């Protein structure tokens, strides 16, 4: 595959990957995200409901956590994981750990890496790992790696080991890969480890670069093992070392503000698990990513000045003095202002009855939505927002209906993919800073 960069501004890369996949026929835009799956399905969604969503990214992300236990089945099936999961024409990226499930550490060894599937722990040796890849036949996969989350301030020795082991695994994977008929047109992604130690990170990057990999995965940055600042610095340093003509993936980063920080530091591809996590909490993504100020909307705003003033008063009142009715009104006024104009202080914040601002999403289990007949997000063109209301979602969540998950997943994926499109647009327009500011204001 080839990476065509249309622009690089302050480390932010904007471009396209072409001739991607085993048939060399796919392309994808970067920065972008992957379609997150569990056991090969976008959670809650059938093929038909998934196709209701606009902007579904090309790469389908599978994990060994959710699929390794079916190795024997795939070996007998022989037609590859893509067809097995009902996505025979999709670009398949196979990683090891599921970003939405906790991964206990302390089980990796010099020769094995462990994953946790539905049936418990599965220990992968190199040959088992490669046997799985050959049975699955993905388009991309990352080499076996020792990326288990390390506790903060782990010993240098342990971190050093993770880098060495991973390089060793990479070399062995490559050996099998290069001799495999079945993996001939697949790409191996090299994995960069190194914990929280800069020298180890750089060593891992420089060594990995020497191998014939299709791209790079920045791993081991999930979880709480280091401060955000350190994490971001390490990311910058690593991407600074890497060749510009190969894509950079990162695992474990999903929140909009974090995504933007990583885009600014040369990361190209992100996992798409964040919308799923939001769905499982009964929440809908609602953050505003429209960084452009729309002149028509500006006018609407100025006409609504009196409401604005009232709004201001209500927002500053404390929870206990706000009646349910007032809360409702707050809400309706907030809705009127959510016109995609990039107006932050009113439109993009949603108050629940606590008067607290929730980051990036609204909690539809909250009673304030019981009779709110507006869509999840005003102006959102997704199937859920075009056809259903917050009140209906509230009802579905209350009665524990499966449909709640389906509708929320549709909206949340749509919203997230549209966010990534806005990142690409902002890069094209040179407005990333505006988008970053807009998102930062909505963070708790």
């Amino acid at each position, binding site marked *: 595959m080839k990476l065509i960069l249309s622009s690089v501004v302050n480390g932010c890369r904007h471009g396209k990957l072409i001739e991607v996949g085993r048939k060399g026929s796919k392309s994808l835009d970067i920065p972008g995200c992957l379609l997150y799956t*569990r*056991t*090969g*399905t*976008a*959670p*809650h*969604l*059938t*093929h*038909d*409901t998934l196709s209701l969503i606009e902007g579904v990214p090309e790469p389908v992300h599978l994990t060994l956590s*959710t699929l390794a236990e*079916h190795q*024997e*089945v795939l070996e*007998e*099936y022989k037609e590859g994981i893509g067809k*097995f*999961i*009902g996505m025979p024409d999709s670009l398949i990226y196979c990683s090891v750990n599921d970003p939405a499930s906790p991964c206990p550490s302390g089980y990796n060894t010099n020769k094995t890496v462990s994953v946790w599937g*539905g049936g418990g722990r599965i220990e992968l040796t190199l040959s088992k790992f490669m046997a799985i890849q050959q049975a699955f036949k993905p388009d991309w996969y990352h080499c076996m790696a020792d990326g288990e989350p390390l506790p903060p301030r782990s010993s240098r020795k342990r971190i050093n080991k993770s880098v060495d082991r991973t390089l060793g695994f990479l070399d062995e994977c490559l050996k099998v890969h290069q001799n495999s008929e079945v993996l001939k047109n697949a790409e191996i992604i090299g994995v960069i480890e190194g914990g929280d130690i800069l020298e180890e990170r750089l060593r891992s990057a420089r060594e990995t670069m020497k191998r014939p990999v299709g791209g790079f995965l920045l791993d081991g940055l999930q979880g709480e093992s280091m401060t955000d600042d350190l994490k971001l610095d390490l990311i910058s340093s690593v991407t600074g070392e890497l060749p510009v003509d190969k894509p950079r993936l990162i695992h474990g980063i999903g929140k909009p503000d974090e995504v933007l920080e990583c885009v600014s530091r040369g990361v190209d591809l992100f996992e798409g698990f964040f919308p799923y996590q939001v769905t499982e909490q009964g929440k809908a993504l609602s953050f505003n990513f429209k960084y452009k100020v729309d002149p028509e909307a500006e006018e609407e705003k100025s006409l609504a000045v009196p409401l604005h003033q009232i709004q201001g008063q209500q927002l500053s009142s404390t929870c206990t003095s706000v009646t349910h009715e007032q809360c409702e009104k707050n809400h309706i006024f907030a809705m009127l202002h959510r016109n995609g104009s990039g107006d932050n202080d009113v439109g993009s914040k949603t108050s629940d009855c606590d008067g607290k601002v929730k980051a990036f999403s609204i909690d539809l289990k909250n009673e304030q939505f*019981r*009779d709110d*007949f507006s869509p999840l997000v005003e102006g959102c063109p997704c199937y859920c927002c075009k*056809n*259903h*209301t917050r*009140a*209906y979602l509230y*009802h579905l969540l209350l009665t524990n209906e*499966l449909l709640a*998950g*389906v509708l929320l997943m549709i909206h949340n994926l749509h919203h997230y993919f549209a966010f990534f499109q806005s990142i690409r647009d902002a890069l094209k327009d040179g407005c990333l800073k505006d988008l970053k500011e807009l998102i930062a204001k909505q963070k708790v």
Partner: protein
Amino acid sequence: PDLIAKANGLHGFMNWRRALLTDSGGFQMVSLVELAEVTEEGVRFSSPYNGEEILLSPEKSIEIQNALGSDIMMQLDDVVSSTVTGPRVEEAMYRSIRWLDRCIAANKNPEKQNLFAIIQGGLDAELRKKCLKEMIKRDIPGFAIGGLSGGEEKDHFWRMVLLSTEYLPREKPRYLMGVGYATDLVVCVALGCDMFDCVFPTRTARFGSALVPWGSLQLKHRQYAKDFKPIDEECTCPTCKRYTRAYLHALFKSDTAALHHITIHNIAYQLNLMSSIRESIQQRRFPEFIQQFMKRMYGSADKYPRWAVDALSAVNVKLE
């Protein structure tokens, strides 16, 4: 109901443009019998969560159904389990007639909403007949056959169905509540029923059971782990066109999407069954259809359920 009224009725709330049928809450007298107290006034239910009591009277039930705006509404009937015998059955039957009249009087929307009566009388032919004779005197758009499909002997079940359809007017729909399984549907169409409802196909889907013309597949079972056929090779539903039994087996423990796939298939199966029935009736070969159906489902004549053979025979369909 106030909330739904604000939402433009149930159609508006759900955003469903097609027909909706609502039940009256009567069945809960059976399913929640421990929490229910029945009097002439109505049914008093007490909440197991907070002890709060609600009175569901014929008037209240119709009021709610009016607010929901469903296209077909059911009367509130006095329902007893089909396994109950004795004077309670008779009491319930007469009360259902009185409640039917109260429902008719309470219906604020007879032009747009069709109120159906529900024939009761348990498994007692005489009581059923009395109920039928009375209820058909009322001018209502349709009739349901109730009080069956609750675990009674199939041999009694079909006789009550046939008795009801013999009395009910030919030009009004006959709705058999709570049916059901494929065989029951086929036989009851032969006995003269038009409409059915059942939780079975979707509920069983959520438990991993896929319906097929020869029975059902328990996709959770290990035997399907490496079965790379679709649920039914002849089925054209979205699930069968794209997914294997093996994948559904693997997915079942992991994501709700498996439930959706199997639900879609089961609904397709039911709809296809009914449409095949209609087609064969129109083409005047329904008896042949029944024969084929039974053969496919049971394999050989000695496996055909006795009650089905008897029921079909009673309407002149002789199975080989």
